[in-house]
């Protein structure tokens, strides 16, 4: 398995901990993660929100940036929120349980 695949897998694992507080589901299972591009020691992540006017945009951007920054082997990262293609409910992973992840009692 090449290094790029390993990094992509590590990114996905990290982002599975980023929860959309509105729906209580992580952004990977919600289908909000669109692209992970790896080049040498740099990674670029493109994600979307459930709607372009989503007030959670800033929060999710910060959380994704924080998650990526925690990764070893990555020296340069870029996170961009993209609006196209439009997200829709069909992108949600089958069998996802909504509101199953309440916010932690203490952070």
């Amino acid at each position, binding site marked *: 398995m090449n290094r790029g695949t390993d990094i992509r897998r590590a990114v996905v694992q990290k982002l599975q901990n980023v929860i959309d507080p509105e729906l209580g589901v992580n952004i990977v299972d919600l289908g909000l993660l669109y692209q992970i591009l790896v080049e040498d020691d740099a990674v670029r992540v493109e994600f979307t929100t459930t709607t372009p006017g989503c*007030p959670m945009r800033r929060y999710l951007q910060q959380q994704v940036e924080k998650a990526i920054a925690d990764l070893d082997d990555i020296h340069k990262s870029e996170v961009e929120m993209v609006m196209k293609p439009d997200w829709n409910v069909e992108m949600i992973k089958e069998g996802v349980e909504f*509101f199953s992840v309440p916010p932690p009692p203490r952070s």
Partner: protein
Amino acid sequence: MNKTDLLNTLFGLLLFCAAQGLLLGLYTGLIRLGMSSPQAFNLGPLTHGPLMINGFLATLIALERGAALEKMWTYIAPFSFAVSTLLLMFGAAQSGGYFLLLGSVTLVGIMIYLCVIQSVSHHYIMAGGAISLLIGNLFFIVDSPIFMLIGWWIAFPLLTIFGERLELNRIMRPPKKAVQIFTVLITLWLLSLAGIHFSRNPSWMFGSIILIALAAWLIRYDVARRTIKSVQWTRYSAWSLLLGYGWIIVGGILGLIYGLPTAGLLYDAVLHIFFVGFVFSMIFAHASVIIPSLTGRIVPYSNYFYLPLILLHGFLAVRIVGDLLNMHMIRLIGSYGNVVAILLFLGGIGTQLIRSKNGD
């Protein structure tokens, strides 16, 4: 300072302005009830409504939308609402009015932009809310009596929230026909608001039937009926949502019986059913989502938050009884109780944020 830092600073300042709008709005509410008014500012009892609508709700909602799009021009809307609040506070009604207009027009622009990006029902409904605010504020700045424009001011938060609920409830996959019915109901309600300017009581009564139908739709299709069996914020939010929908039905029934009075206790009762019973309950319901979007931090849940929720609805019921039975003391107790409930809620949010920051 780079663009992100600039936007973050602007965001913080505008959030502070929205909080100031809320506190001044609550304070002028007490002035309306007979508390002595401050000498330093031009804060009479009649500023209560405009402060709550524009100084607080419009600033906050425009800020939320602006932050979602992360474009400099979108911040013109909350900035203008905040400036107009300050100007109105110091008695500069005319220039305050211009900023009010600028804020309302920009908010409509933001919603049109969203409709262009994604042409979906919930965006059009929220755009209807922004247009309602613009119409209401146009009447306001030409000195139209507030009882003439109040329907448009009620429509602003209601349609914004209806649109947001429809957007979130896509996960419930409501039938296409149900969404069409919801949209038709909202169109009819907007028409009834326009009708108020020609035939006040019959139009409001017709609109009240529509509002009851909208509340019934929301109770039927909102995820809240399921999530009320959940835990923590999710359960809390469901209670707040369903109680809010309940108050719309109460407001609708009162509207059917009495129409829309032009002033007085009944008028106050109707307004507070919508603004406190529904809008503040929705703010409580969405706090766990609004706060992270505004501050970037999760609010740890506590059972404490049920206290302000119970007080909000309990004291509102007391206040409405006081209004309907013309009992001043009861009305006073209910109103002060509502202010206490809102302050207790805000205090709880602040405390939880500080505690989580300190790692307590």
